[in-house]
Each structure stands twice: as C-alpha cells, then as structure tokens.
C-alpha cells in the first residue's frame, strides 16, 4: 500500500516539474529581460542619470521627477486626460461598429469571402509604415494636413470640400460631413482585428438556439439581443481589453510620442518616470474594466 502511494506522488511531481520546464524559457525571458528592464527603468525614474563612457551613473533623488510630471509640466497632465477621454469615446464606438460589420459579414451572401478578405487588410497593412509616414512625416503631413483621412476629399488639386461648398451647402454642413467621413475612415482602419474576432465569436454560437427561437416566433431584433449578445460577451471582453491596450500603446498615441521624444532628448529619468505613471494608469484602467465586466458576463458551460 505504501509503495503504491509513493509511486503516485512521484508521478505528480514529475509532471509538475515537466510543466515547469515547458514554461522555463518564457520565465527566463520574463525575469531577465522584462523584469530587469522594469527595475532599471524604475531606478532611472527615481534618480538623476548622467551618461558616462562606462555606462549610466545614477544618483538617488527620490520622487522628484514624479512630482515634476504633475506640477511643472504643462503638457503631460493634459495629454494624459485627453488620451483617457479619447479612449472612453473611441472604444465603445469601435466595438459597436465592428460588431455591426461582423454581424453583416456573418450572413450568407455572394462575395462574402471577398468582403471578409478586404476587411482584414487593415490588420495586415495598417500597423506599419503607412500610418507613420502619413502622420509624422513633415513633408506629406504639411500637404495632407496631418490626417490621412483628409485625402478622401483632396487629392492634389481636386477637392470635394470645395465642390460641396460651391454647390451651395453651408460651411457647417460641409464640416460635419467631412468630419463624419473621416471618422468612418479612421474607424474602419482601427477595427480590423476586432471584426475578425467578432466573426469568430458569432460563429461559435450554436445554431440550435436560433432554431429554437424561430420556433417560438422571435423577431430578428429579439434574437440579436437575447441570444447573440449574451453569448458573445466573453469575446466582447477580449475585444474590449485588446482595444484599450492597442489604443494606449499604439505609437501614434500622444503620450507615447511625448515620452519617446523626451527619451530622445536624453532625459532618461523624466522619460522613465512618465512611462511608469502612464503604465500604472493603464494597468488600473484595464484591471478595473476586467473586474467590472467579469461580474456581468455569463460563461457558457462546455
């Protein structure tokens, strides 16, 4: 009896040791690359850094830079606030929009594969040089006025806005129209991956539920809100968190550009302090979103 029990224990430990070995590369990377860099960054943020030929010299000065970020820096708190409010506006709109498109793309119609293929293009192309070369490049941004969406209305010397103005519409309406259209442009290019995730989620809802609802005589509106929407809540949460992360760590984000520019000016301590403040704020927002929504969603039993 005793030998049997001993054998079972050693198998368990053997398995748990094997599991540990599987995650060992990741663990090494996490501790030695990421955690070490985070500790270094925290060290920079609380000390005065000077660059000597041998490396970096640090003198501990306490949380002076953190206080400086909020008291004497004029642009940082404003940018932080605008970044957060920007998120509160864009995240629900992006999610609603991509859900809408995903519902449409989930239906059966001719040319569905082509439509899906085209909607995925922003993910392939969008995260790269195009955005940068449109946004940051002085040369093209002076022409396109800093926003690639304005291109829809002016290419060289042909400008839709002038056409609309000449046609007699008032300047206010033309403004509204052009800003609405440029918003759709930005929205579509930002919601590439969300659309794909939603399509995948919609397909995982079993069709038996819909058939049962049809038998009971539910309308399409009721079917959406009572069946589709609750069943895709887990995907919705994954999407929401991904949207928040992407919004905050995207390179075209204001705060990120500010931090990177300060780092380029070799003021490492201040840049590190700013990054840490930003990071803590992002972490709190994401954590609170996760906990709030986790209470409300219903997980289906597999």
């Amino acid at each position, binding site marked *: 009896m005793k030998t049997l029990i001993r054998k079972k224990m050693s198998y368990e430990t053997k398995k748990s040791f094997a599991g540990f070995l599987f995650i060992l590369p990741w663990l090494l990377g996490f501790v030695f690359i990421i955690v070490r860099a985070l500790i270094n960054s925290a060290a920079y943020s609380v000390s005065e850094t000077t660059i000597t030929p041998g490396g970096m010299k640090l003198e501990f000065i306490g949380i002076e830079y953190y206080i400086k970020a909020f008291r004497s820096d004029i642009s940082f708190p404003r940018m932080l606030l605008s970044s957060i409010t920007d998120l509160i506006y864009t995240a629900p709109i992006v999610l609603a929009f991509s859900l809408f498109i995903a519902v449409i793309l989930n239906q059966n119609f001719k040319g569905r594969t082509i439509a899906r293929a085209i909607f*995925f293009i922003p993910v392939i192309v969008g995260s*790269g040089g195009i955005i940068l070369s449109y946004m940051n490049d002085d040369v093209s941004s002076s022409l396109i006025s800093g926003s690639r969406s304005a291109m829809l209305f002016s290419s060289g010397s042909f400008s839709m806005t002038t056409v609309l103005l000449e046609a007699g519409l008032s300047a206010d309406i033309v403004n509204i129209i052009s800003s609405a259209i440029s918003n759709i442009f930005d929205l579509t290019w930002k919601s590439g991956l969300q659309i794909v995730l939603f399509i995948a989620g919609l397909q995982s809802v079993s069709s038996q539920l819909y058939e049962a609802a049809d038998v009971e005589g539910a309308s399409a509106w009721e079917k959406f809100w009572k069946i589709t929407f609750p069943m895709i809540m887990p995907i919705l949460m994954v999407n929401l968190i991904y949207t928040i992360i992407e919004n905050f760590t995207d390179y075209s984000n204001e705060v990120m550009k500010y931090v990177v520019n300060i780092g380029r000016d070799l003021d490492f301590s201040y840049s590190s302090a700013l990054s*840490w403040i930003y990071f803590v704020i992002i972490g709190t927002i994401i954590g609170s979103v996760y906990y709030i929504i986790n209470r409300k969603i219903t997980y289906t039993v597999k």
Partner: protein
Amino acid sequence: MNDRKKQILINKSRNFTVGTVRAIFLVSMCFIILYPILYMLSMSFRTVDDIFDPTVIWIPKNFVTTNFQKVFEMIDYFPRLFNSIKISLIATIINVIMCAFAGYGFARFDFKCKSLLFGCVLFSIIIPPSSISIPMYMGYKSFDFLGIGTLIGLFVGRPLTVNLLNTEFTLYVPALLGAGIKSGLFIYIFRQFFRNLPKELEDAACIDGCSILRTYFGIMVPNASASFISCFLFSFVWYWNDYSTVTMYFNEPITLSASLSMIGTIMKGSTYAEIGSNPYIALLYTQCACLLCIIPLLIMYVFLQRFFTESIESSGIVG
C-alpha cells in the same frame, strides 16, 4: 392562393431590398479600405506634371515606371526586402515555437504559483514598449547571457558580456525567451487552445507509453495546427511592420518598414534635396515607397488569405 402569392412576393422584395442595401453598404466600406492602396497605385505611375494637372484624378496621363527605380535606390530596396523577410521569418518561427511551449505548460500542468505566473504573462502584454526600451538598449549593449556572464565574471574578474547591438540577435533573443512582439497574446491563445483539447487524448497517450515530450510533439502539436498557423501569420505581419525595435537597436534601418518610417529624413538628405524641398514631389515618392513596402505583404496575403480568417475561428481564442 392569392394570399400566398402575395406573401412570396413580399418576401422576395424584402430580401432584394435588404440585399441591395447591404451590398451598397459593403461596397462603400470596401472602397474606404481600398482607397489608400488605390491612391498609392495611382500616384506611383504618375510623372511630376501629373500631380499638378487638375484633370488627372485616378488614371495618369503619362504612365511611367521611372519612379520605382528612383525609390529602389532611395531606400535600397532589394537587400532590405531580403532582410525583412529573413528577420520576420526566423523571429516568427522562434516566437511561435516558444509561445507554444509556454502555452502548453500553462494549460496542462499544475505547478506552484501557476496562476501568479500566468498573471505575469498577461501583465507583459500591457507594458508599453517605451517604458522598457531604454533599459533594454543598455541590456543589449552588454548582454551577459542571463546573468551567467556576471557569475563567470566573479571568478574571472571581468564580466563576460557581448555587445548585441546592430546584430539581428536583438530580435531573436527576446523571441527565444518568450518576450517577442505580443508574445503574451500568443501564449494566451495557445493556452486557450490546449485547454480545450480533451484530457482523454493525453491519458490515451500515457497509457500507450508516450513520454511527455512525445505526447507534446506527436499529439498536441498536430492538433493545434490551426493555432500555429494563425499565430504564425499574425506574428509574421507584426514583425514585418515593426519599425521601432529596428530603429532603436540598429544604426541603419535594415528592414523595409524601418526605412519607410525614415523616408522623411532620407528625403531631406543632400542627395535627394531636390525631392525633399518640394512637398508635392516628395508625396509622390512617399506613396511609391509605401506601395513597394506593402506589396510583399499583400502578395502573401492574397495567397494565404484563407488561412488568416479561417484559422482564427478554430484556433480556440474564442472558446
């Protein structure tokens, strides 16, 4: 009889209207998405005069291909294309394999502090890259093999370090250690997938006498091919499009995306001053360069499009 015919007619017309509205909506959306690409195509074949010509909207009057040659030499296209492909491919392969290991470990085994460590995985996704880029730069400047170099240094008197900057190992080493681009996300995807596989598979393998490694390579990996494919494709695209790590760790932009991000500074340089000074001409060459940098990805996408959209559904991220 009449009633039924009327009902059929109403149904048909309703389907027709819904179909038409949907078609119009989708076509306009697709136009919005394809617009920049079409714009780039149109601009790349124009001469400088065509930019100022108000009658030219999409189709240029003089169809020229000389812009491409200029851009080839401006951003040193072919060697950098080769670099992009090589770096993205190798880094992606390493990244996906290592993330699969970690995902399997988290999914199927129990060890101490497992949830805490998985929390660390999720934590690593939300770290903004700029917080740790400067310390990582310093770390690569004197890379000491995860602390072994300093240990040896205690004996030898001088730590054993290697300067990894300007080599591609700055990209391969983090991928090898699970800290590549969005690795946390891939570990999460793999863990979700392996969790959804039935435990009976593993038990059957164990009864048949498979060691743990053999179970992994022989059974788990073939089942997870959808996850592997989708993570591979995403990782390849993200590594290809990533210009920040390359511009930080290399003296010269050796990949296409990095060169594209620096095209403003290239055009301000002395050799291309006549281009950089005129914003319209600069726009022309910028568009042409963008097109050339996107074309490889688009070609790959055309061939592998099916795998992108289909594999996400079966990869288990939504399970």
